[in-house]
């Protein structure tokens, strides 16, 4: 069996657009991990998908986060909200990973370059992630647009 190379994160990696996450959770490639206890079931069918052909879930918010506050202020990490639709809210927190995670994917190879032999598979570390957002509580109902 051939050995499969695992490439390190590309030093030149960049994110595709502005990053809505707090600085601590931002990575050069923009990749981040959100973990939800349980599963998300979508009853949306294809025509109901949003304009980007994605399933809109809701909103992610860090209500205590203040970008101008010093980095030592970490209280904001304890409260993260994920609004699902208009009627549910998950409460979570930012957790530092005991062991950082490498996000590994198969590298896209050019079909034309057969230099390494036919289809030499190469994997790469797309990013190294040090923190994740974890939602470990059951969703609670919230009033839809009545207050505030």
């Amino acid at each position, binding site marked *: 069996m*051939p050995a499969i190379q695992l490439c*390190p994160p590309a030093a030149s990696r960049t994110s595709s657009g502005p*990053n809505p996450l707090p600085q601590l959770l931002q990575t050069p490639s923009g990749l981040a991990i959100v*973990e939800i206890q349980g599963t998300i079931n979508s009853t949306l069918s294809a025509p109901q998908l949003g304009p980007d*052909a994605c399933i809109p879930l*809701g*909103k992610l*918010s860090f209500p205590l986060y203040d970008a101008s506050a010093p980095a030592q202020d970490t209280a904001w990490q304890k409260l993260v909200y994920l609004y699902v639709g208009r009627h549910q809210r998950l409460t979570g927190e930012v957790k530092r990973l005991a062991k950082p995670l490498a996000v590994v994917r198969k590298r896209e190879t050019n079909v034309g370059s057969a230099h390494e032999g036919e289809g030499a598979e190469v994997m790469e570390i797309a990013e*190294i992630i040090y923190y994740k957002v974890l939602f470990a509580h059951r969703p609670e109902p919230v009033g839809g647009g009545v207050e505030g």
Partner: protein
Amino acid sequence: MSAQADEGSPFSLLPEEGRQHFRLLELPPDLLELIVSEPSTSLHFKSGPKSSKAGLNSDAVICTPNKTYNIRQVNTSNSVYICQPTSHNDDDDDENPQPGLQAIAQSSWTLELSSTASPSAVPYLKAALPTYSSTGTYQSNELRASKQQIFDDTPLSQAECEAAWKDLACFEVESDPKGCFLPTASAKVQVWRAILESATAAGVDFGGNQLSLKQVEMVIDRSDEDWPDELGRAMLASVCDHEGMIDQGRGVRAVGLDLLAVEGTRGMHVSELLKKWKDALPEKWRAAAKVEALPRSEYTLSDDRKTITLAGVGSGVAAAAAESKSTLGAKRKWHERFRESKKTAK
């Protein structure tokens, strides 16, 4: 706190068909350090040949140039999403796309890494390589794999493979036949004796300090050799340290083990081994030829330490199993014998 369902960044999921495929791999501190500080270090996923042989791991591993990590897949029932920033357009507000987060992949399992207990590529090389025997016979080798191809198929790091290759005195031949071979213990003993004789005749002082492989190679007479040069070189390399200097400890150990492998698979007298062992060593090494110089896992002693036997497949575990197996057999035979005598007694 009032429900602010309108606050926050849009969070969406790509439907399953559009999702990318990622694996999550936990990084132990030393591997993380290596990747971050020396990103040019080569890393490889490797796996061994499918085999039911004891001691051979067919699971996947990750290797740095000199270290191997076992991979264990750990599942979670949680939904772990890998997300990236995206620009969302609210339905009626194309002017101000709001930055959002989109889940582009989901992983229900993580790969955990652990260090291998005492990694040795020896069993893999022994399983993969055809032999070369003292009669000059090459075992058939249809695969003709190169040394690197064999290493690629071994779930251990390059350095660990090289170490085993060197210890076993494996060699690679370019043609007629082509391929890699593992010399039998008899072949190694034969080659070693010839090298020793030739070097001693040429005045090489094995007891002196700092004797290099090259120095020995230069003086030995090759004209009578029936074996390929590559084997001669491999044999010498197997008794050298990592700097290419002849190492007495390695030499004494290698010769003792090879002699035991030739004659001691079913047990031989310790006195007999010691005699042959000393005969096969340079004069100044002979005092070091003692049973204690052999790795404990490679032999068993019996009969009040007068008989020595090569351990089963060269591993301590196999030796213990072989020992207990033979004891069981003996017990059974005793019962049978007793039964027989009982019958005849009537």
